[in-house]
């Protein structure tokens, strides 16, 4: 069980309001990702749920129980910190066993659960080392191990992969998703990396300055961003946002078209421009097209084989049905 409900939750530090009134429901077993730019209040929100900070007003309910007076340890939540927060003077085994020891489990049961978690996380060979003797990825796994042995109602992750290199990040991403599939426990995951958000989430919560901009599945957010902020934030590379006369043709203040929804041709098309930088990824090529008269650059995705050179004139045609239209407030026009 692990349903988490936030009702009119606010948080201020002194005079600064970090979280204005906010409502959110996280269903049991859901993998929810909080994304947003740096400083938007993701960590603060997570810490409020964890109980490491008190809410200024409003209510957080975990499995229906109001948790205002419940200390962090009693909420049945486990948190994985960005810095891992391992205990440096304890071996991996003792680190993972620490919550069990605090809960007063007997030694045999502690050992059993630690061995089990270590097997799941490929840590068996490292149990007698100290955190200082482990690589970043291994430390990360120890932190996760310390969280899973408690069998919590929900996991809270605060940017757990941000200290890892790109390759390791992809690997750990899969491992965490895998873990979620097996445990089916509620997970809340904070990140500012939208790729992590898109690939892992059942539900994405996009935050800006403490406000929820949109909540939905990754595909919903991708297909129907509710406003310009979400449109620009979700998807990589970013959606092309075009204003002016071209937008007016579609009865909108701004139109958006994703790089992958523009077709490219050497002969003819709706828009024309000059190829600037091109990024060859092998599978895809991204062209940054200039001098289109629409926006400073328009990013276009093409097949890996397509080969235009810097300075070539090319023609672009957006796929009409994939065009997003926004009004003057930046809200989506249905």
């Amino acid at each position, binding site marked *: 069980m692990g349903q988490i409900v936030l009702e009119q939750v606010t948080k201020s530090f002194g005079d600064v309001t970090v979280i204005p009134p906010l409502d959110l429901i996280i269903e049991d077993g859901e993998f929810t990702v909080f994304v947003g730019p740096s400083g938007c209040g993701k960590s603060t929100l997570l810490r409020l749920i964890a109980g490491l900070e008190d809410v200024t007003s409003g209510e957080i309910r975990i499995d229906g129980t109001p948790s205002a007076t419940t200390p962090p340890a009693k909420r049945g939540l486990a948190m994985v910190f960005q810095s891992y927060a391992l205990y*440096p003077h304890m071996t991996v085994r003792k680190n993972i066993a620490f919550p069990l020891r605090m809960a007063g489990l007997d030694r045999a049961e502690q050992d059993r659960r630690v061995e089990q978690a270590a097997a799941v996380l490929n840590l068996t060979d490292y149990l007698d080392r100290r955190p200082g003797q482990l690589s970043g990825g291994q430390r990360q796994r120890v932190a996760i191990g310390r969280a899973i042995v408690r069998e919590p109602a929900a996991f809270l992750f605060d940017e757990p992969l941000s200290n890892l290199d790109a390759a390791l990040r992809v690997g750990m991403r899969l491992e965490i998703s895998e873990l979620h599939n097996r445990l089916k426990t509620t997970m809340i995951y904070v990140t500012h990396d939208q790729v992590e958000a898109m690939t892992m989430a059942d539900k994405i919560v996009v935050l800006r300055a403490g406000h929820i901009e949109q909540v939905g599945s990754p595909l919903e957010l991708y297909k129907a961003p509710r406003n310009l902020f979400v449109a620009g934030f979700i998807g990589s590379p970013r959606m092309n946002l075009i204003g002016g006369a071209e937008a007016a043709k579609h009865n909108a203040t701004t139109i958006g078209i994703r790089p992958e929804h523009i077709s490219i041709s050497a002969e003819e098309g709706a828009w024309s421009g000059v190829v600037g930088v091109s990024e060859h990824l092998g599978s895809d090529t991204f062209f940054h097209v200039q001098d289109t008269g629409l926006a400073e650059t328009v990013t276009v995705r093409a097949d890996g084989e397509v080969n235009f050179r810097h300075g070539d004139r090319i023609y672009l045609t957006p796929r009409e049905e994939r065009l997003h239209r926004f009004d003057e407030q930046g809200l989506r026009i249905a």
Partner: protein
Amino acid sequence: MSTKASRSAARLMLAPAVILLLAWMLVPLTMTLIFSFQRYLPMRGGFQGWVGFENYARFIGSSAFWPAIQTTIIIVGGVLLITVILGILLAILLDQPMWGQGMVRILVIAPFFVMPTVSGLVWKNMFMDPNNGLLSHLWRFFGADPVIWLSDASMLSIILIVSWQWLPFATLILLTAIQSLDSEQIEAAEMDGAPVLSRFWHIILPHLARAITIVILIQTIFLLAIFAEIFVTTQGSFGTRTLTYLIYQRVLESQNVGLGSAGGIYAVILANIFALLLMRIVGKNLDR
């Protein structure tokens, strides 16, 4: 400092400091060594010939030697115990956010700036005086007979005075150590279900282990040589004669430089044994 040239340049530039330091240490040490093998009584005939190890045997054989060692160890141990325990508590207290933090910290550090002689006299006359001391007023206020501190509880008094002197040092070192503790570790322990005392025991104390060994190491070396506090209060009577004080008495009161020098060499050996022992412990701690 990785290349050969930079290494030798570094040595060259360090040389004056090293030479000065060596001279500073070696000259008195050698003179003490030389005196310790002489029969040398400045007021009673001066140099009276070489006597080999006689001074060493006499110093250790005197009935005052072992009690002095015992007194030294009790005082050093007592002060260490008080300063480390209170130092940890004070450091935790000062680490909490509170009003007037900067001022409070300066006040806590203040005793360290008071000269040992002055602090000894202040304690003796202001606090521990049996007639007019603050403590005796306090005792009388509660209807008790005032304690005659410096004669009835002489060891305790000395330990208190010296602890008061050294508490700021311990607090300061431990405070910086506490401040370097990652707050996420405490939060993680909190989420792991550790109550306040367990957090202290399992997280904060191990984190402080290194700082504590350093406090013990440095303090021990200085405490082995305390003198002024005893000189201005009990003058070594009432069982407060430490090794240092015994040496002082041999040299200045009995005017026996040779005998005192032998004692001085014993003190050097004792301090070195302590230092080596502690260095090993610290070394082990620093390895981690």
